[in-house]
């Protein structure tokens, strides 16, 4: 019994040490962990398009790079006059793609998508994320596809 006091004391001390270390490291871990990015879409399900005006996509085959909620996107009008929007993050390595009249192209590694956002050549493994796009108060807004379409003003 007596023989074990020293050993059990050291065991207790190391257990306390581990607990102390964990208690100290947990806040540090939480502090360094990335915070959840805010949802770019507002309560009405819409996100304002930045750096692209209606004039930039006035006619068919016009398109431009811009942003929404801190992310990059492209908006263009296809040959049929339909407005299209895609998140511009290339599904391969995360560069921003560019609208090039007949295709969507990524300069980093030559990833190519058709105007429906489908990956047709180069390294991208998946299609681009398509966004719903609408005109409201002379400005462009995007919304998440798949849910209910937000009411148009």
């Amino acid at each position, binding site marked *: 019994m007596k023989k074990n006091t020293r050993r059990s004391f050291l065991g207790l001390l190391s257990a306390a040490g581990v607990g102390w270390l964990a208690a100290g490291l947990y806040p540090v871990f939480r502090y*360094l*962990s*990335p*915070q959840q*990015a805010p949802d770019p879409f507002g309560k009405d399900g819409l996100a304002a398009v*930045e*750096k692209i005006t209606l004039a930039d996509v006035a006619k068919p085959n016009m398109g431009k*790079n*811009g*942003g929404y909620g*801190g*992310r*990059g*996107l492209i908006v263009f009008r296809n040959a049929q006059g339909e407005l299209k929007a895609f998140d*511009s993050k*290339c599904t*391969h*390595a*995360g*560069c*921003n*793609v*560019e609208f090039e009249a007949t295709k969507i192209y*990524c*300069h*980093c*590694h030559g990833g190519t998508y058709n105007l429906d956002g489908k990956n047709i050549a*180069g*390294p*991208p*493994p998946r299609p681009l994320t398509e966004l719903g796009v609408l005109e409201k108060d002379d400005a462009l807004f995007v919304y998440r596809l798949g849910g209910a379409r937000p009411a148009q003003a």
Partner: protein
Amino acid sequence: MTPDYEIPPEAETQLPPPNKLTGRLSRYLLNRYPVWPIIDHLSKKVVPRHRDTVWYNMGGIALFFLVVQIITGALLMVYYRPSQPWASVQRIVMEVPYGNLIRSIHNWSANLMILTLFLHMFSTFFMKAYRPPRELTWLSGAVLMAITLLFGFSGYLLPWDDLSFFATRVGMSEIERAPLIGHWIAGLARGGADVTVDTIGRFYLLHVMVMPIVVLTIVGIHLFFVQVQGVSEPDHFAALPPEKKRYHKFFTEFLFSEAPIWLFLSALLVALAAAWPRTLLPEADPFAAAPLGIKPEWYFLSQFQLLKMFPGKVEMVGLLLWSLIPLGILVVAFVDRSIPTDNRGRWTTRIGIVALAGLIVYTIWGWLP
């Protein structure tokens, strides 16, 4: 005054005479700190003289570049602001006297340091200096090599220009591909799902504080190992009869023979920085399309090219192929044996030649437009 420690008799014969200032100073110190055995050990350190002696300079040259990096890096920190990354670098380049020179020297010295470390590593490899009992020296060097590459990667983002932004985004997406922990590590490094100014804060801290402390500590350990064990002798030299072996004394003959190299390299750095200053592209725009011809720094080109060759679903193959090199570096010191005629030794050399040739070919291939 009573001395606390006696000066050993053999020290007395080697110290400068006591009537000289250096003699008095060395006796003053040795009376208080009994370090004569250490000094004696260091004064006996020798460097083998043979046809490959020039490669022994590489470690010292890398150390020279490290010192240049610390000095120029500290100077850049005076004006760099992580909250206004691009504007503050533009100020360094456009307004601060000699700012462009100091920034460009920092860039050139970083590149030459990495090149020197590659030469240091491959010369150590082909001279088989990694074999027992020097495995841990080799491993600590491998860790230093990896951290130096991370230094390059983290420093690349800090100017926050078009190229550095997208290059970092691509680099982080490579890290994300690592199985299981890739996403977690990339998120932790970026401070979010994407590269933002939050990422700058993290990279800056790593670049100017965490990694320098780690590197200086491991460099200390690496040099301590080398001092204790002495310089490795390649097989062709070790096989010579003792009377045919010639050595340089390290202190101070070999060390001072490096002084002209340091002077030359200082001049070279200034010349390179003046002739080819580091460019600063337009400020990063997270909304804009990626710029044309985006490529990583030359020391990441081989991975870049290999990943390009295995797109989409077979990308894992490229990643695995490339990871064979760091894996080989880690295990070779424990596989190869210190027997000159051993078959394993021949095979590690052959594999090393293939790996080196592959690295060079893929780097050039990736560099071509």
